[in-house]
């Protein structure tokens, strides 16, 4: 059987491999085609329309695009805020969860206990986390009392957004820690043993064994982190509704505001913003991949 398998002509092997691959991907392709492709097409279509959801969309050509690219809220608040958010939160949450994962990987006591606790914030619904954080960060709340501060966290233009960042980092670190842990346990001990034989110390084995082996997972965490952070919405919806004075307004919040919240619904413009956001994320992800994976990446 083996000899025959190896002797199958190349072309047929490749074709049968392709068929097998597609069969593996079939469920995903089904969902992708019915939902994602249609949704993208619909969004693109809507971006060229004037649509208030109460009556059918009207063709508007590039008018919606013009308006969005001149919009004050979008350009001076939403975009800069969102970029700020990504640039700060992604590195912090990646590094923090990596550190926690390393710590959890050591043979320390009460590991199971710690793991469950760290996972807690990710498991609680974001509404509850937001409520508790509002309470904890209020002027007479726990945080101010503990650190003897007098900051009005969520109501001050300077501290509202950082507070949102903190809440998010807090919530996602547990999940990311889990993912890193799963990745760490993929690395065979044989590699570490080989490194030790070659005379590597702890730091070297960390740099030359762990991190390279973790690269695909790090790429995953950072990419999904970037994608998720560009779309940050939940906490803002519950905690600040974009305020005070639009200091916590992000691009995703603008989309929601124009699509559903305003009395003058601008669904077409919301679609424009969504497409712009998607393109930005694509660009950033592409850049990031170049940096992390380097040339001749395993991706290909």
């Amino acid at each position, binding site marked *: 059987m083996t000899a025959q398998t190896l002797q199958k002509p190349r072309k047929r092997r490749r074709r049968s491999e392709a068929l097998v691959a597609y069969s593996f991907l079939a469920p995903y392709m089904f969902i992708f085609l019915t939902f994602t492709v249609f949704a993208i097409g619909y969004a693109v279509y809507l971006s060229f329309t004037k649509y208030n*959801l*109460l*009556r059918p969309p009207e063709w508007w050509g590039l008018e919606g695009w013009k308006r969005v690219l001149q919009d004050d809220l979008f350009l001076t608040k939403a975009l800069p805020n969102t970029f700020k958010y990504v640039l700060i939160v992604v590195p912090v949450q990646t590094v923090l969860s990596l550190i926690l994962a390393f710590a959890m990987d050591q043979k320390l006591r009460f590991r199971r206990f710690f793991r469950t606790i760290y996972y807690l914030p990710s498991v609680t619904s974001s509404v509850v986390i937001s409520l508790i954080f509002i309470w904890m960060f209020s002027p*007479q709340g726990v945080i101010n009392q503990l650190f003897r501060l007098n900051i009005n966290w969520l*109501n*001050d233009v300077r501290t509202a957004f950082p507070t949102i960042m903190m809440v998010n980092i807090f919530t996602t670190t547990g999940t990311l820690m889990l993912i890193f842990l799963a990745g760490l346990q993929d690395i065979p001990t044989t590699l570490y043993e080989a490194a030790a034989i070659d005379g590597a110390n702890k730091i070297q084995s960390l740099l030359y064994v762990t991190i390279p082996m973790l690269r695909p997972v790090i790429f995953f965490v950072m990419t999904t982190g970037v994608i998720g952070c560009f779309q940050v919405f939940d906490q803002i919806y519950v905690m600040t509704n974009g305020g005070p*004075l639009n200091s916590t307004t992000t691009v995703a919040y603008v989309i929601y505001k124009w699509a*559903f919240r*305003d*009395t003058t619904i601008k669904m077409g413009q919301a679609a424009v913003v969504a497409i712009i956001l998607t393109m930005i994320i694509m660009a950033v992800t592409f850049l990031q991949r170049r940096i992390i994976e380097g040339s001749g990446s395993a991706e290909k």
Partner: protein
Amino acid sequence: MKKIYFVMSIFVLLSLLLASCATTEAEPVIETVIKTVEVPVIETVEVTVIETQEVIVEVPAEQVEIRLSGWASSPSETALLESLLYRFSVENPDILVRYEPITGDYWQSLLTMIASGTEPDVFYMDIFQFPAYAQEGVLLPLDDLMAGTGTSTGDFIPALMNAFTYEDAVYGIPKDFNTLGLFYNKDMFDAAGLAYPTDDWTWDDLRAAAEALTDLSNPDRPIYGLGVPSDPGRFPIFVFQNGGSIMNADFSDTLLDSTEAVGAGEFYTAFRTDQVGATPADVGEGWQGTVFGKGQFAMVYEGGWLIPYLNDQFPNINYDVVVPPAGPGGEGNMIFTVSWSATVNCQHPEEAWRVIEFLTNEASQTTVLESGFALPSRISLQDSEYLANNPASAAIFRGAFNGAIPFMWGVVGSDVNNFMGQAIERVYLEGALVADSFAQAAADIRAAIEASR
């Protein structure tokens, strides 16, 4: 691991079966709908509002199905609505009402349904959103249907009925309403030796009282005389009381930069600047109702919804309500109201109207009134015993007369709210001058009006 796969796949199959069978079908028999709930009403009259019942009702062969929706209020209010619907179904066995409450973002869900042509037959319409919906013709005009059952617009409080009238046609029957009242903490007034507010109070009385009641001696528990949030659902009544308005009559322009509005803004924000008032955020809360309950605001302008809240959350507070004090331009108040409306695409408009008519008739409104949850929109109930026994609610009710204006700013309403709120925030957080801040807000609003054409 193999065993787990096997078990899982069986479970998945079972669940898929269950899931696909999970659609509810129209029930020909009205079965247990609600649970017994004790609804405590103010003045310690405990009223059991609903019963658990199994009733076999003779059902005609063809039932018309009406889908009814609204946002979800607290469980007790929901139970109240369900009891009304139950009563309706008993009296109208040929109509099946399916109650489909929306427990999350109401407008997002409703808009999604309208956009996809799957909206419910009868639903809540808030006055604030009403202009856009009326303008786009998605609501069913009710005049002819009203004539059919002899329901007259004159039965209802004029301000409310007019709110839901667009281009001389009625598009919703107001189910209830709320206004703002001046809530004051009796104990704090007693301690400061002040006379209680009356309906004849003016701005000067308000300011004097706020000054006398403020006590900042304890930094951990500051007490302010008046709550002055940047909420666009509170501030405008000061503009009305100063003889001005937020928008002009046909909502084509804003009057936020007028002298009356700026004057009102200066009076309002001065409370906080002079440290005799504060926003809820200043004392760590999201809502001034909570601060009032905690005793850190001596007075707040809030709607009648504060009454059941205080009952549940702060039962020991000793308070009362009066109509908001008059300003240089006289009295002013805002009306918050919600109507039952029907969709223009309704397949059974007659039946939908019967549901609406029932839910807003005198009997139903009396039930609602006596539960303490909302104030009725029918004029005939203004002399009811309940109001006589509940001065707080009566004060809120009185607010609907004497020129109260609905909380609605035309199609660009949400933009007006946003810019108005930000204008006040700028004064509070950035120390801007009221005149400049309001001028900027007015400019922003005009741009929004322009963009919406």
